[in-house]
């Protein structure tokens, strides 16, 4: 008993000392993250470690240098039922892209597979089980396409962060807390693990160490729902892809049927209703 009590007191003193150290360093450059994380103290939610921000920006800059992207992702995604229960969906995502205006994303999933095609002029969403597809005129860049899909059609382009990091839309000013948690391997690749917080989400990112600072894994925890659903994506990169532009073009199978996006259908139906009312 005495022994454990001594330990407890010792621990308290250590934590207090660390707290003082954190207070002292706050406002200055915080470079003691590694030591603090080693001591298990990572909960200072207001601290921004500039090294963690720099690592994120460096990764974004590196991603911008890639003319082509060929990445495989294993994605697990929580949906929240109305009663708060979580349902986890797993899918495999293959993204092939050529900057600035070609992209194909294939979401393989037993229950709701989709393929996204963008050939620089048209965007097609294809549902192979339903044999339904929709094609719209597309903006001239992947970034603008992602914005349009989100804003008008509620569509999340798979792995969209890969196309926004290192751009204005992927800047780091929204981050309110950034911590370097130290080395951590993903699929045998040594990475550095970071912990970020911004409004509504906590997220962890694993960035490959060495000359190719690629993102290897992300875990996003949504804070705006008390069920705290998570989205996790683990990436495998191919830095020398071989493909041709046909990969980005959709050719409808003969039994495929065209359907619209809901927003366009709603516009069409309300226009029709107005016409009928006149």
């Amino acid at each position, binding site marked *: 008993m005495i022994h454990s009590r001594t330990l407890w007191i010792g621990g308290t003193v250590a934590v207090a000392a660390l707290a003082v150290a954190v207070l002292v360093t706050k406002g200055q450059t915080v470079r003691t993250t590694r030591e603090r994380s080693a001591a298990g103290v990572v909960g200072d939610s207001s601290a921004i470690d500039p090294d963690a921000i720099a690592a994120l920006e460096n990764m974004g800059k590196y991603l911008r240098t890639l003319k082509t992207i060929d990445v495989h992702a294993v*994605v697990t*995604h*929580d*949906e*929240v*039922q*109305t009663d708060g229960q979580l*349902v986890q969906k797993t899918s495999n995502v293959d993204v092939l892209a050529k900057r600035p205006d070609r992209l194909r994303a294939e979401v393989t*999933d*037993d*229950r*709701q*597979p*989709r393929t996204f095609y963008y050939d620089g002029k048209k965007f097609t*969403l294809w*549902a*192979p*089980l*339903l*044999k*339904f597809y*929709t094609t719209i005129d597309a903006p001239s860049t992947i970034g603008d396409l992602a*914005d349009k899909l*989100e*804003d*008008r*059609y*509620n*569509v*999340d382009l*798979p792995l969209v*962060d890969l196309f*926004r*990091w290192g751009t204005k*839309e*992927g800047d780091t000013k929204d981050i309110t807390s950034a911590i370097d948690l130290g080395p951590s391997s993903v699929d045998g690749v040594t990475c550095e693990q970071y912990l*970020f917080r*911004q*409004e*509504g*989400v906590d*997220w962890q990112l694993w960035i490959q160490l060495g000359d190719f600072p690629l993102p290897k894994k992300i875990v*996003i*925890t*949504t804070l*705006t729902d008390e069920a705290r*659903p998570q*989205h996790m*994506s683990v990436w495998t990169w191919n830095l020398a892809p071989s493909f041709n532009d046909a990969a980005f073009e959709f050719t409808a199978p003969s*039994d495929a*049927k065209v*359907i619209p*996006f*809901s*927003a*366009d*259908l*709603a516009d069409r*139906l*309300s226009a029709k209703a107005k016409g009928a009312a006149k």
Partner: protein
Amino acid sequence: MRYPIRILSLVLLTGAFVAAVLIEPALAQRRGGGGRGMRGGGMSRGGARPSVSRGGGGGGFRPSGGGGFGGGSRPAQRPSQLPAGGGNMNRPGNITGGGNITGGGNINRGGTVINNRPVNVGDINGGGGWNNGYYGGCCYRPLAGAAVVGAAAVTGAAIAAASIGSVTYALPADCVVMVVDLVTYNQCGSTWYQPSFEGSTTTYTVVNPPQ
């Protein structure tokens, strides 16, 4: 001896009422927004955000008022928080059981039912999808030149409640895909639906039969 009969009819009536209530969220959710707190369990009230860039954007918690039928287009900037009142985005799989009810021997193919609560599971179709493979299949047969879409079986009450403009994630059983004047419909008896993509999920809007 009269009591058991009365109890039985009470049970039946209650069952029918519950079935009718259960289906309502599916029909109502695109119009009224929020799934949160809505009875009938099993519908998705949102999901984890899939991305962090663009202000943590993307994903599960857009308000569902915009973009729906009559809802106009979505604002360019998503609000950074859930609106008060919990208007939130439902992003279920393609067909859910809004009601998982089997009617007249129809099979519930519309969702995985856990403790009688339907869970959104994804595309339900006769296109040779998972339901065929996993459950022995049923749903893809030529009929008058069109494919029969097997879907979540719902009650007659639900079908009767489907008014023009209402949106559902679930179709009754025994619908056919019809293309009229280049427009794709799901015809389910006398009710015609127009399928569309809400996000990457399909939804079905009740429309007037094509002329």
